[in-house]
């Protein structure tokens, strides 16, 4: 009987060690930092513009063409999940420099929902070149990033 108890204790001890190691590997500050959000937001925006351009029937462009840079700050103070405000600076299809603001809600698991805060990008639906209505991917979009 004793060996069973010992085995159980060993299992529990091992488990606690694994768990503690995982926890210790990123103690302290929240992993949701402006750096991470910017690093996720900019490429996502760029790819979305690429897809949108294709859906609108405009000449194809790649994400890199848009040279998106993002800068974000927490609206409610401190780092971590919650409301963030981000400003994106990028080069449009006509090579013009555009600035757009987004309101982000970032959750603890590293996923965010970005809702456009400016008027430039249009409403939820856009008219494509061939007259059809397509969804405006830039109106509100979501993404996730790694928080480990």
């Amino acid at each position, binding site marked *: 009987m004793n060996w069973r108890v010992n085995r159980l204790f060993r299992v*529990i001890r091992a488990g606690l060690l694994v768990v503690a190691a*995982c926890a210790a590997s990123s103690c302290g500050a929240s992993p949701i930092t402006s750096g991470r959000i910017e690093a996720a937001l900019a490429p996502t925006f760029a*790819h979305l513009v690429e*897809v949108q351009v294709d859906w609108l029937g405009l000449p194809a462009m790649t994400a890199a063409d848009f040279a998106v840079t993002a800068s974000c700050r927490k609206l409610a103070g401190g780092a971590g999940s919650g409301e963030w405000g981000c400003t994106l600076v990028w080069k449009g299809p006509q090579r013009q420099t555009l600035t757009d603001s987004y309101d982000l809600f970032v959750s603890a698991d590293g996923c965010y929902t970005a809702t456009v805060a400016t008027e430039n990008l249009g409403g939820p639906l856009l008219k494509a070149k061939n007259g059809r209505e397509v969804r405006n991917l830039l109106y509100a979009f979501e993404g996730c990033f*790694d928080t480990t």
Partner: protein
Amino acid sequence: MTLRGIHAVFRVECIKLAAQAKTRLALAACVAGPFAFAAVIRLQSSLPEDTLFGRSVQQSGFALPLVVLGFAALWALPVLTSIVGGDLFSAEDRYGTWSTVLTRSRSRSETFAGKTLTALGFSVLAIAVLGVSSIAAGALVVGTQPLVGLSGVLLAAPDALRRVALAWTTALAPAAAFTGLAVLVSIVTRSSVAGIALPVGLALVMQLFALVDGPEPLRRLLMTSAFGSWHGLLAEPRYYAPLVHGIAVSAVYFVVCIASAYWVMQRRDIGR
């Protein structure tokens, strides 16, 4: 403890499960649910915008299974895993059949292993049925259009299908952890009600904790965090760290729960 013995117990438990209405109902709900959901989406104009991929649901059929996956993590998966896992052992207490079952040629270890395997098997089956059904519902009701991923990249149909299927398989690890928890509760409390209520309640509490922005290390140790580890598969480039983490945490929970349950089971005196 022999494999043949465990197999014998497993077979008997499967036969018993198949004869019960609740398992058939649960699996039927897994099949019908996604289709009903898809029909509602088609008919309604408002979208489930608070779930990931909710916005894309009318656009690409591959978004539907991901919405179901996101929603299932909240409610359906803890319930599905507990329906069988939380009842398998306490049912013997409810019917008083422990003395019937344990006075046959199978040892307690074999009985425990067979029943645990059955509970795991049902969890896997339920997830598989729910996943396949939601993929089918999406493909049939909405279509197989390309899916806009979590990094804005447009994923072509074959790639999207692969990723969605993989995302569903990542639910197996936390489901196993919940199954282990349900089994432990079932054995310790000897009550099927507790065996379902406690894991589901715990899942709710864990998700509330995640919402409330608790300390990050603790959030990672929650069983429910592993349900969200599929996000990295839909991003470009893919990241697997949360998935690996989720599997490790789920494995620890599973082993601890099952080991404790086994220990309690072995020590128990049946009857007075």
